[in-house]
């Protein structure tokens, strides 16, 4: 591998990391928001796939990809709100409901998505950050979708809001000590319903990115478990939105490893490199399960830490 090739791999990795990380980031931020309220939503895989289908369908029928993004968020919001409402019923386990919603969301998407597999819908436009260099490889690598910046801004906003707004403090209080929240007259079910719905909205947008930008089409094999991996990612990020961005970039970089090596002609072990995010998930789960300080950052009401 020459120096120039290494340079290209590096840029392809950065570009790929940004591209692959965006859906991770949205789902992780949504999951982070949900878990901060003391509930876990394992159904975000369903939000992601349904969001992807709805975004593609709306973009195809209206011609506006941004309308598609909004519709995807709406679909995710509805799924999230349903999850939040069902979990508020007595003796309902949020993990079981989440798994049911994972199947429900993907099933719904497959059912309504059949007619949209063939046609081609307008896609989201990227911003060319590397165009000024005149190097086509770099320009190609630094095509960044605006949603990435939206996600980063959102992470900064959430991080600020958790510490500096009444809503943020109430959300954290509900997630950490339901008894205190109740003693203060906060409706725990309402807070969790809103947090789960908002989290579902973000996960839906993550799906829109999949079908409208990268890989950029709707089919049933579109998601490869990003929605589930985001749960691991949130634990790894210790429920901190900013760390969620870094963790998403790390997962993105791992996911971009295979394609960027292929771009310079190294195709040996392609499938192995493609599996990098899954292997990473596994190791991160083992490492974070062993870390005792991670446990102290977990919201106290979360059913997985109780």
């Amino acid at each position, binding site marked *: 591998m020459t120096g120039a090739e290494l340079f290209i791999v590096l840029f392809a990795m950065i570009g790929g990391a940004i591209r692959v990380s965006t859906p991770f980031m949205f789902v992780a931020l949504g999951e982070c928001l949900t878990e901060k309220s003391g509930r876990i939503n394992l159904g975000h895989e369903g939000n992601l796939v349904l969001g992807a289908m709805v975004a593609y369908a709306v973009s195809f029928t209206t011609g506006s990809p941004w309308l598609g993004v909004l519709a995807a968020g709406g679909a995710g919001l509805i799924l999230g709100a349903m999850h939040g409402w069902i979990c508020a019923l007595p003796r309902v386990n949020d993990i079981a409901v989440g798994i049911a919603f994972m199947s429900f969301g993907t099933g719904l998407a497959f059912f309504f998505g059949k007619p949209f597999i063939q046609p081609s819908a307008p896609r989201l436009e990227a911003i060319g950050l590397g165009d000024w260099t005149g190097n086509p490889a770099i320009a190609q690598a630094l095509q960044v979708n605006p949603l990435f910046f939206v996600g980063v801004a959102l992470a900064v906003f959430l991080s600020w809001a958790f510490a500096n*707004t*009444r809503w943020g*403090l109430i959300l954290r209080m509900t*997630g*950490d000590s339901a008894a205190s929240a109740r003693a*203060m007259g906060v409706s725990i079910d309402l807070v969790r319903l809103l947090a789960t719905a908002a989290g579902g909205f973000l996960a839906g947008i993550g799906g829109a990115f999949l079908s409208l930008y990268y890989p950029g089409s709707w089919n049933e094999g579109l998601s490869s478990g990003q929605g589930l991996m985001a749960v691991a990612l949130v634990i790894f990020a210790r429920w901190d939105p900013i760390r969620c961005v870094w963790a998403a970039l790390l997962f993105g970089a791992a996911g971009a490893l295979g394609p960027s090596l292929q771009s310079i002609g190294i195709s040996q072990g392609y499938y192995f490199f493609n599996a990098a995010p899954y292997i990473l998930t596994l190791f991160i789960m083992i490492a974070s399960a062993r870390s005792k300080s991670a446990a102290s950052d977990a919201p106290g009401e979360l059913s997985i830490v109780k």
Partner: protein
Amino acid sequence: MTLAATLPTPRAPSLETEGMSKIFGPLVALDDVSISVKAGSFHALLGENGAGKSTLVKCIMGFYRADKGRVRLNGAEVSVASPRDARSLGIGMVYQQFTLVPCLTAAENLVISRADAPAIIDWKREREKLAAFMDRMPFRVPLDKRVSALSAGEKQKLEILKLLYLEQRFLILDEPTSVLTPGEADEMLGLLGDMARAGEVTVLMISHKFREVKAFCDSFTVLRRGQLTGSGDAQGATVAEMSAMMIGDTEIRERAARAPRNDSQTVLELASLYADDAEGRPAIHALNLKVKAGEIVGIAGVSGNGQSALVEVLSGQRPLTDGRIFIHAKPFEPKRADFDRFKVFGLPEEPLKNAAVPRMSVAENIAFRSYDKPPITSLGWWLSPGPMRKKAEDLIARYRVKTTSPDSPIEALSGGNIQRAILARELSGDVDVLIVANPCFGLDFASVAEIRTQIMEQRNKGAAVLLVSEDLDEVLELSDRVAVMSGGSVTYVAPIAETDRATIGTYMAGH
């Protein structure tokens, strides 16, 4: 001039209840109770467990709706339908369980507790206001630490600060000193007493501790079985009078008789024990202690100084990171085989959680130490329910466990009866080592006497008893030697005759 301008700064209110009654099904929890707490007084509410103290304050706070009766605040009748109403009237309560949010900092906890917390919090301004507020307050708490990192004493102070921050001038404290060292407790009660005398607050304190009532309170009310049995001037009344009102006609319980023993043989030896808590922080640190045969060593200490970790280590619930346990100079591993071999028995705190399987029957729970031995088990694997039931019936009768049947789940029993069932299981055979933790927590007078007698009997028969208790009176009553745990190790050991409450208190505070 507007009305607001004429209102004086909030002053301590007075509060009366008139004929409060509350009935839960067949139980009359509160029967026509009228109490009067004067403005600026420090009033003690005394009574045994189940006497109705909590019911009364919960009615005042609006958690329960009284079936009959009225609450008057500053002489005017008020209606309190929910804790929120109580809060807006300036009535606040500190509960036995902390209501602070562990993941928020002290400052965040204070600001968010306000009903008018701003949608966007300007921390610079809030911090200035908090600093000004703290300057007027008698106690200090680090505001930028997460509550989970505060000590129990600091949390308790923060709970009280929170009420004052919310301008609540009628404070109800539910056994506020149970988690504090005697020194901390005296400091806090003294400062509250000063504030009350200055007319800034009125305090109603639920307490079991006559010492504190005599030292700090100016008036008191006693409840027994839901009825008012007395009230008056706390300084004028004697402890004997107050305790007679509390327990009524039943005899004041006698102390368990201590047979003189002069054993010199060390049975249990803890050699330089180390263990971590759930988060990996050291919970026990270089702990050394010896317990002789026929001796009770009582461990005093403020809760959270490693006592529960020590009991968990000894009962095999928590691994040791370093150190050895010896019994009769032989190494002891806290495993079932060694418990049997060395005749080690235990009464952990919260027996339903630590020593029983709640949904299994009383008979099965009683058989936990013997189910795998004859006569219950034959051929090494065949378990017969007949002998198990018979043994349970014997022990239930002998230890007077009140249960509808040996087959009912143990969780259906009352606290005292669960404790008796566990006692029956642990003490019915030969005992060489007995490890006891907070055995009387939450029990009524009669059960307390019985359980302490049982422990003393084991000592008199020659068992080495290690008693861990947060109740200093219990430690002082039962122990032959007193040890103090502070910061995860034993910092002080002395024979009971050569020590006193004040000395123990200074070691408990870590000095």
